[in-house]
């Protein structure tokens, strides 16, 4: 479970995130939906303690990352916005490297990698060097690498960005399976269909604040719109409909 209590962050004059508060419970997919530059990535980066919030508090399964950063990171599996791989290493070696940094034994890494390979359908390229991988293959390796330690909390920044339909479906199916296993999943996206397809709870982010939240049907109900996209536009433009 991830608890976020009124976190804020400035970059110079710009206030990127203002007093954001929410909770992402276990066995649920929570989505941060917002346009580019709305503050999604900055919020996520504060949650996985890559940058420190100016104010507010974050708890990962009750652990404060400010006080115990390494312990908090063990409870998190993060697919960041940048997902570069080591191209002179094979996909398996990329995953192994992170497993070892998590202090896992070789057998554990092996068995976990095998199950991730099966879940994400990586059989064809797992032992190939990652140089020249397609976008979809790279994202799958990046996800496997981030989740090699089988964390309770999964954070993904725009996970299906740039993926084709088949890869997108693969990733989605994987996330649903992880949810069934009781994991807490928090992801950001600007794609409406995607958010609508997998999320239990949607947080609409605009200008660094959360301006609405609820399930898809709740948001549609609140705004009286037929679909999520119209509801989103209604919310971020204060009901004016157009920018």
């Amino acid at each position: 479970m991830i608890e976020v209590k009124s976190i804020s962050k400035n970059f110079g004059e710009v206030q990127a995130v203002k007093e954001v508060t929410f909770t992402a419970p276990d066995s649920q997919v929570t989505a941060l939906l917002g346009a580019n530059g709305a503050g999604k990535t900055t919020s996520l980066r504060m949650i996985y303690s890559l940058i420190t919030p100016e104010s507010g508090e974050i708890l990962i399964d009750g652990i404060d990352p400010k006080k115990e950063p390494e312990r908090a990171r063990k409870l998190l599996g993060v697919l960041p916005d940048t997902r570069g791989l080591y191209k002179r290493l094979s996909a398996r070696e990329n995953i192994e490297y992170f497993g070892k940094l998590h202090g896992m034994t070789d057998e554990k890494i092996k068995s976990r990698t095998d199950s991730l390979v099966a879940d994400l359908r990586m059989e064809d390229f797992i032992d190939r060097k990652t140089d020249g991988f397609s976008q979809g293959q790279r994202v799958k390796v990046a996800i496997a690498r981030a989740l090699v330690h089988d964390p309770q909390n999964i954070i993904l920044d725009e996970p299906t960005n740039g993926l084709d339909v088949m890869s997108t479906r693969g990733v989605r199916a994987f996330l649903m399976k992880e949810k069934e296993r009781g994991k807490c999943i928090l992801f950001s996206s600007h794609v409406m269909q995607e958010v609508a397809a997998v999320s239990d709870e949607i947080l609409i982010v605009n200008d660094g604040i959360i301006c609405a939240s609820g399930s898809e049907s709740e948001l549609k109900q609140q705004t009286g719109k037929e679909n999520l996209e119209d509801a989103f536009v209604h919310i971020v433009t204060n009901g004016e409909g157009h920018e």
Partner: protein
Amino acid sequence: MNKQMQQIKTVMFKEITDNVRDKKSLLSSIFMGAVFMPVLFVFMINFTVNMAKDKQESQLEIAIQGADNAKSFISFVKSKGVKINEFSGDATKAIENKDEEAVIIIPEDFYENFSSGIPAKIEIYYDATAKGTTNVTQRRIKALISEYSNTIGMSRLQLRGISPLLLKAIVVEKHDVSTSQSKGARLLAFLPYALILGLFMGSMYLAIDTMAGEKERNSLEALLLNPIKRSHLLLGKLFATISFGLMTMILTLITFKLAMPFMPLEKMGMSVDLGFKTLSIMTIILAPLAIMAASLQTIIATFSKSFKEAQTYVGLLIIVPMIPSIALMILPVKEKLWMMATPILSQNLIINQIMRGEQVEVVSIIAAIVGSLLIGLILALVAIKLYNRESLLFSD
């Protein structure tokens, strides 16, 4: 603690594996530093030495214009086994076009002056700035002429009943205290430079790849999310970088050792001691320098946004070890203790001492190790401090 050591080791071995697989990296560090440079040096020394040697022993050929004007001189020259080539035309042109290395012109009034006891003139045309063996040729010609001139001069005095020794007011007796080893050291003055350069080149590529490369590949953010302290992450990377520098330095030493038999040392009456003890001392005093080189390169690479930028700046850093090495090749220096504690300078001085066959004081070795180690560790701390900044990811 054990777990953290394990993490540092993981990072280090990953970086080593990653870079060993990179042909560019191996080429620029190991090959250029440890193989290419020593081989090039050996080749060049051999070439120069042999060329000078051959010229000194080869038959001298002289292009002479107006040989008929000085028949006795010509027969003297011939008696010395020199081959005379009749020359006519423009002497300056012939030398400019490199048709001749030197041309002698004997003027028409030579015999007239010669027989009436007036200094007779012989003109030599040559190019003092010409490369290679030309200077040897013109020196040999001058020596021949002055020998002839002396012989004639002395016999003239003797004919008049005057002892030719009166002309020699002073006799110079030379005592060259250089040993065959110190002569060898002069020839190998570049050895410390080559070793230090090898060390810098060896670690250069890794420093760039582990810092700027990680950023450019967009893998840094994911890496930082692992449960490892940033300082430990940097230590792992730094150890990998240091190990490449050390490896290249040791390989350079081995290459030199293997290349020694191919050096024309005996021909020149020189000797160089590259025994096990010598090599060990060199390794011990150079090793701490690897920490300094790697830290310095890492610091610079941390500031760079891209691989290319880092390559430019870290590449410029190679000039640093050149300064003391070249200064010492030109300027003679009396070693002082503070010099022995100054990194790079101390290694240069001590290796030069070893090569000259001088006894190296233990104090000097300790000063060199402590001095370099201290500065290396300070720089490593600076590198760690820089890596801990939050802005590391956003330096663009």
